[in-house]
């Protein structure tokens, strides 16, 4: 995603990463990962609710796609980092919005492995903004 940041900005798109973690916990995470994006906290999940991001079922959280994803990450040597107790059932998502709050593109994850790639997002942005 980092490598794509300039390509998003060239299209007039700023990236904001939002987490439901408390700001203090999120600051720890950010210090570790050094994301080149603005990172904001939504501990009351008002934005999650406004964008209709629901809680996933047990079957969605532990879907075959999720197991496959975590197996791949383990094989790549990634370790799970502990940032405290968290809600594993909250779904995530990706939204392209304009200044008036119009949602030009939405993707609500159906399981933890269900996220569009940066390349796919750029293709969608090019289509939507052309």
């Amino acid at each position: 995603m980092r490598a794509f940041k300039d390509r998003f900005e060239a299209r007039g798109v700023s990236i904001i990463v939002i987490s439901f973690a408390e700001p203090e916990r999120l600051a720890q995470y950010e210090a570790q990962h050094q994301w080149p994006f603005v990172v904001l906290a939504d501990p009351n999940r008002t934005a999650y609710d406004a964008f209709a991001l629901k809680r996933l079922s047990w079957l969605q959280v532990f879907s075959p796609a999720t197991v496959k994803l975590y197996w791949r990450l383990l094989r790549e040597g990634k370790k799970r980092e502990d940032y405290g107790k968290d809600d594993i059932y909250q779904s995530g998502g990706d939204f392209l919005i304009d200044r008036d709050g119009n949602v030009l593109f939405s993707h609500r994850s159906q399981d933890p492995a269900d996220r569009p790639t940066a390349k796919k997002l750029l293709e969608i942005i090019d289509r939507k903004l052309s």
Partner: protein
Amino acid sequence: MEKVALDRLTLHDLNGNPVKLNEYFHNYLLLIFLRHLA
């Protein structure tokens, strides 16, 4: 088309200060909502 009242949403920066999404616009925003931190 879906529409969200951005001015009604208050989020927090990493220092815990309240912020509005409107402050971060270029022309468009791509909002990436995370799941848990791991």
